[in-house]
């Protein structure tokens, strides 16, 4: 076979010359340096703060910066125009740390004092999971008008598949 001629080591047995070793070290450093630079610069420039509604509303320095925002969806506020694919809704503040998502969302939407923010998306098909008490995770920027202009929308609906105290429905007569 032709490839056998390829695989014969040509310089078997010779000692590695010093200049060669320096070559290896240099090439290795350049390679690792490039990789380190890529990861480092990406880490510095590409990150987005993951914020709560309170943080976005109360800190004007975030205005115009690309951030991620999480909150609970208010079902009554959802307005979708299928012809223009423009989607508006409001979310309310949920804390960044919680033990039970379903409970946290439920408390948030029923708290009249919770901070609210209006969200606008363009060119978006209304997601199946966009409903009352869903958790919305948005990527976008806060506009001068106080509306959060999102480009990406992720939703979580823990309601049925992650009950706080599961199985309560089994009790008869509920």
């Amino acid at each position, binding site marked *: 076979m032709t490839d056998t001629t390829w695989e014969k080591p*040509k310089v078997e047995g010779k000692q590695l010359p010093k200049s060669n070793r320096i070559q290896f070290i240099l090439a290795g450093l350049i390679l690792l340096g490039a990789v380190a630079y890529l990861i480092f610069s990406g880490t510095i420039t590409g*990150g987005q703060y993951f914020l709560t509604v309170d943080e976005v509303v109360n800190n004007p320095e975030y205005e115009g910066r690309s951030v991620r925002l999480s909150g609970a969806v208010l079902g009554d506020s959802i307005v979708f125009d299928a012809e223009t694919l423009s989607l508006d809704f409001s979310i309310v503040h949920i804390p960044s740390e919680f033990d039970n998502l379903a409970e946290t969302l439920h408390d948030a939407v029923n708290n009249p004092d919770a901070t609210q923010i209006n969200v606008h998306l363009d060119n978006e098909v209304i997601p199946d999971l966009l409903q009352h008490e869903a958790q919305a995770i948005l990527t976008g920027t806060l506009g001068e008008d106080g509306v959060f202009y999102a480009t990406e929308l992720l939703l979580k609906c823990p309601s049925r598949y992650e009950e706080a105290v599961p*199985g309560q429905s089994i009790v008869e007569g509920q």
Partner: protein
Amino acid sequence: MLAEVGYLSLIIAFGISLYAIVAAFIGERNHTESMVRSARNAVLVAFGMVTVSTGALLYALMVEDYTISYVWSVTSPSMPEFYRATALWGSQEGSLLFWSFLMAAFAAAAVVLNWKSHRRLMPGVIVYTMAVLAFFLGVSIWVENPFVRWWLDSGAPEGQQVLQAVFQPAGTVQPTATRLAETANGLNPLLRHFGMAIHPPMLYLGFVGFLIPFAFAMAALASGDLSTNWIKASRRWTLTSWLFLSLGLMLGGRWAYDVLGWGGYWAWDPVENAALLPWLVGTAFLHSVMIQEKRGMLKAWNMALVLGTFSAVIFGTFATRSGLVESVHSFARSGIGVPMFLFWFGVTFISTAMALWRYNQGMLKDEHEFKSLFSRETLFVVNNVVFLAIFFAVFWWSFGAPIVSELFFNKVVTYGEAHFNQYLWPLLLALYVLMGIAPLSAWGYTSVKRFGKAILIPVILSVVSLGVFFMMGMTDVLSLVGYWIVLLAGWVAIYETYRGFMARQKIHNENPLQTVAALLQRNPRRYGGYLIHLGVTIIGIGIIGSTVYQAETQQTLETGESLEIGGYTLTYHRLDTGLVSSDGRIIDRATLTLSRNGREIDVISPRRDFFPESEMNTMTIADAHSSLENDFYVLLVGWEEISTQRATFKVYINPLINLVWWGGIVLIVGTLAASWPHAILPVRVRETMRKGREQ
């Protein structure tokens, strides 16, 4: 009854796996053959008991035993049998049990298949596989028990009347069967998809399979037999696991593409990335292990990679199952987080310590030195560096940076899909460059002249084939550079295979199929590897095409009206609402026709399904006209409530997307070819070959 059987066999399996560890350890230490054999039998019995336990849960799912809360929470009376069976891995408790079942199966198979050929490593393999199995069985027994049942305590205050326990607590009664059936949850509608039904088992097989190479490596470290034995023993296990992991990742992508809509297949979501991490280290290992086999180099490095792959498997399991990825603090949300983290830490710490110990003893020294910057072994090392660079980048942006920023700066920083796409493409392209040049380089030292001669024809072929993409209207310069690099890698694989084929045809008088079989037989990894490279090339072409040249539009159409995009005409005919399907869902479906150059080519029916029994109740299901050239992908966005005359559609054209799936199939075939070399040989020949190898 089923709950008792399942739970007790779990406990027995746990006890037996602990026994196997002790017996194998003592047997090895005192050189007592009967003890080691007893440990082996214990592995088989443990597998038997986990099988009984898993069988009990599966049976409970099939016969609708809703007294078991797992069955109640993942199935409902209206579910078809197929999804009832796949609900075994539909949620945490069941999927952990299923995971243990696969793990026990792998351990039993490894012990049986490698008993004679690698007897010396067996006690170690038993100890490490059973230790890992015992951990997961323990999690099922104490933390995520799939066999707990519902009990009612009518004397308790409201809100606390429903209890979960395996055995009946005092003063409680079992809820009635009808009430349980009425309230049963059913599987999340998003998961009712063929890809989602088989994606988890494939991924688990891939994850769990890496336990075997890990156990062999640990056994080698423990026994001090650090020759190539452990690598030979684990080679096929590694390839098999890699095959399943690749298949699992691709099925996941396909599921996302079909079900999540929007035409995306990889979003760099932390959960997806957690599954990608072991694949990246595992792929690096598959490459660098060849250097050790051929040249006796990179021994310590390979050891690190195989241990790292398994560490990544456990980390991925921990990250996806504990809820770590949303926030560090969701840690505590699932009871599994802390034990999983400690286990991951333990595995990583012990394996690192063992490897360092042997390294300091000088047992992982290389037999050759690197001689030239331009040699096959150096290029393999560069390949490894790039794979690991991708690994670290993905790990850091998905988990490292978010956790560090939250712990130390009290701010959560996250990295989105666009970020990954923007920063990872140079590294991904570098892999394709290496795929093009490394197979043409020689061991030790490559002369530039020879290399130039070898690459000339693939370069010509790649430039010529680049013309095809240009003619298709893909004129973006950067994408053409990308295409060229990817094509070159593919042509090198094809041309090298062709050269091997022609060289053999010259010598032997045989038909072409015989030659192909003989090539694969004589050098399965070389030619299987080329086929895998070809598959990866096809995937690369699909990725560039579907990301750079995706086109989209949306429009509201009256019945009979059409929209035009990319040379296609899409005409809306009617909307049927309220169709009821056999599993109870209510379907609203639009009917459109797609034509090109005046000829009708397909009928497209995007729809929206409504699941009355579930709260998460609607699902938009796209329909597409699929060809090698593109997917013409249509979503039904909405319609006017009063009349169904006007409806809005969103349309995507995803060029070359199907090459991603076809390339995946080529990759799978290549992996099978590389890992199943002896299947086509008669037993007589196999025997001679085996003897030849053992001499």
